[in-house]
């Protein structure tokens, strides 16, 4: 199960809407081994495409360097689908390389209504992708992540 706080959830949805019709992407980093998505990092989709996303290679390096320095890992890796459902594509599965991460898919295909509003429904789903196997998991949105026993 993915447990995520409301503010981070809302920020991911807002990012997906803002970049629509291109795919949006990013990570939520957290302390290694904690399974706590604490720090949202919006990434630029270097592909700038409605059907593909890729972190820019220099941005990717900086991100991992920063996470390494902070003893963090990518707890959530998210991206949007803008014309299809929030389910990992074959490409998503083939390229998934973080077996410990929650892969979040957001679909904005139904959120832009004919009257020009963007308040239609957004799909937000989470998966584990390990060795080409996709397993959907429950998403629990909480007001705040539970306190940790150790100081953060």
């Amino acid at each position, binding site marked *: 199960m993915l447990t995520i706080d409301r503010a981070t959830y809302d920020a991911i949805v807002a990012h997906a809407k803002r970049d629509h019709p291109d795919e949006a*992407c990013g990570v939520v980093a957290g302390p290694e081994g904690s399974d706590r998505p604490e720090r949202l990092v919006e990434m630029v989709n270097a592909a700038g495409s409605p059907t*593909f996303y*890729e972190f820019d290679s220099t941005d990717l*390096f900086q991100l991992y360097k920063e996470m390494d320095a902070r003893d963090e890992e990518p707890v959530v890796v998210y*991206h949007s689908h803008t014309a299809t459902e929030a389910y990992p594509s*074959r*490409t998503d599965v083939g390229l998934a390389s973080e*077996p410990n991460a929650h892969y979040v898919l957001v679909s904005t295909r139904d959120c832009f209504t004919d009257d020009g509003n963007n308040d239609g429904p957004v799909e937000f789903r989470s998966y584990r992708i390990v060795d080409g196997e996709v397993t959907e998991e429950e998403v629990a949105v909480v007001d705040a992540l539970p306190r940790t026993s150790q100081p953060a």
Partner: protein
Amino acid sequence: MAIEVRIPTILRTYTGGEKAVHGEGASLTALIDDLEAHHPGIKDRLIDDGDLRRFVNVYINDEDVRFIGGLEAPLSDGDQVVVLPAVAGG
């Protein structure tokens, strides 16, 4: 002296779980051959058809090797090499 190579999670099955290993070589291609000698199987995850795999990024001292000669990029003792799979999809 040697070259430190940072290994991403997904490839640590080849390094016995180690986050970083050491290797030798005057170029990236020589380093990868040296890694393969000690961690069999890893080369195929980095190279396809004689070229760096499209969705694998390798950095030498913070520079993406694609901008500094690719597999022929020169290496010296003390350099740090980082391997990161692309974060990408459709």
